[in-house]
């Protein structure tokens, strides 16, 4: 017999897998309902510390990976990884990838003719500290056109991937920027119903903005948390 502390279920505010405005979902989303399974050790365990998986530089400054500094607006993104009761999630890896300041990816399938930047790759990794905090430096990614519909443009966004403590907490998401008018007409962001969609919009923050160096943005990531067994009152016989 195993002692299993299950995680909370996915929030009802998540996007449905089929979201017809985002056309690629039509042929790629399951039609059968998801099947509920009893939580087991398989779902409540996870690989944990990233240094067991990958070795090398952690990549917290995406503006310092090449000979010169990249084009674009330098930004510092910082925040915490929390669970859905507000408790810190320490020692978890956040993987980051994004387009350059012009909205172009260093990827051969991206054939938009915005310029590549020889000084920018756009991939990095950070690990949260004991309080769940993280911080990285990058440049603000540009908007880019895509083929979803006539005149479709993605709002500027940073792709984020988190392992979290367990298989059940795995999350891939995107961070958006608060002053971007493209968010409200973007089928991918809007697959998430309001107001939960706004959880993916970071906040400009003057306190983490570094004078004469970089703008600061705050972004917390909230993962599923462990369900707790009901609190037992041991004082009932006092």
């Amino acid at each position: 017999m195993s002692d299993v502390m299950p995680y909370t279920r996915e929030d009802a505010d998540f996007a449905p897998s089929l979201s017809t405005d985002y056309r690629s979902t039509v042929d790629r989303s399951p039609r059968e309902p998801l099947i509920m399974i009893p939580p087991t050790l398989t779902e409540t365990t996870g690989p944990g510390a990233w240094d067991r998986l990958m070795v090398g530089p952690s990549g917290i400054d995406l503006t310092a990976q090449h000979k010169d500094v990249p084009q674009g607006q330098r930004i510092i993104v910082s925040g915490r990884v929390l669970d859905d009761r507000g408790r810190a999630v320490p020692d978890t890896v956040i993987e980051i990838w994004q387009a350059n300041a012009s909205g172009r990816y260093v990827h051969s399938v991206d054939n938009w003719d915005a310029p590549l930047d020889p000084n920018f790759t756009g991939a990095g990794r950070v690990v949260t500290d004991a309080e769940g905090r993280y911080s990285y430096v990058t440049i603000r990614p540009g908007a880019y056109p895509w083929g979803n519909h006539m005149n479709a443009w993605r709002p500027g966004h940073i792709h984020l991937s988190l392992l979290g403590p367990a298989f059940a907490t795995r999350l891939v998401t995107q961070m958006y920027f608060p002053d971007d008018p493209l968010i409200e007409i973007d089928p991918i962001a809007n697959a998430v119903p309001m107001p939960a969609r706004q959880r993916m919009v970071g906040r400009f923050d003057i306190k983490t903005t570094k004078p004469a160096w970089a703008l600061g943005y705050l972004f917390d990531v909230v993962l599923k948390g462990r369900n707790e067994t009901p609190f037992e009152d041991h004082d009932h016989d006092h």
Partner: protein
Amino acid sequence: MTIETVVANIPLEDRESAPRLDNQDPTIFGQTPSQTVGPFFHYGLPWKGGADLVGKSDMGARPDLFGEEHYVLNLSAPTGIPEGEVIEIAGQIFDAKGVAILDAMIEIWQANAAGRYASVDDTREDAPLDPHFVGFGRASVDPDGIYRFRTIMPGRVPGPGNTLQAPHLAVSVFGRGLLNRLATRMYFQDGDGNGDDPVLGAVPDTRRQTLIARRRDDGHWWFDIHLQGEAETVFFAL
């Protein structure tokens, strides 16, 4: 008092921008919604060796999709050979039209040969850890849409109550057009205990075979994933 007079009393360097409904707003605190990995994840996620849980190789990555100067991902941690039967797993991911998807990624999470997870949340002492086995892997599909892993046949892990689960891998599917990570499991044809596995038992028997890998003549295990259609794979709510 007008907003202007309030702001006027705050020193310039301490003024903050107007509050908005965003990531930092406590009124919408909750799980961060999931978003797609999109088509351009290859320089940010699948690292060299990420799909090889046994030895050192480049399995899993797609460095052909971007310039060599943009390979900034870390490498797999060095490891010795883990205990157990080495197995190779491969398969394709199909859309509703039966077309193999070329921009998808698979992750696996599994126990070692003794049925123990390399996780702080697997606290059992009756099954040994293997210092050479982490049990997490990540593979992009190749240009033919085939994903491949080299790993160890997992041992049996306890399920709910006094049940014992059949050997299985937890599987996550990511890709362009997938707003949510799709979670499924891979079992093995003629696997020990498939007949009374508590998770397979929660699946209607008409669909159970979608979770079972077949052994091919070359000895490799083959596991196709169908996102939709007649042969739609069973996906789980975790």
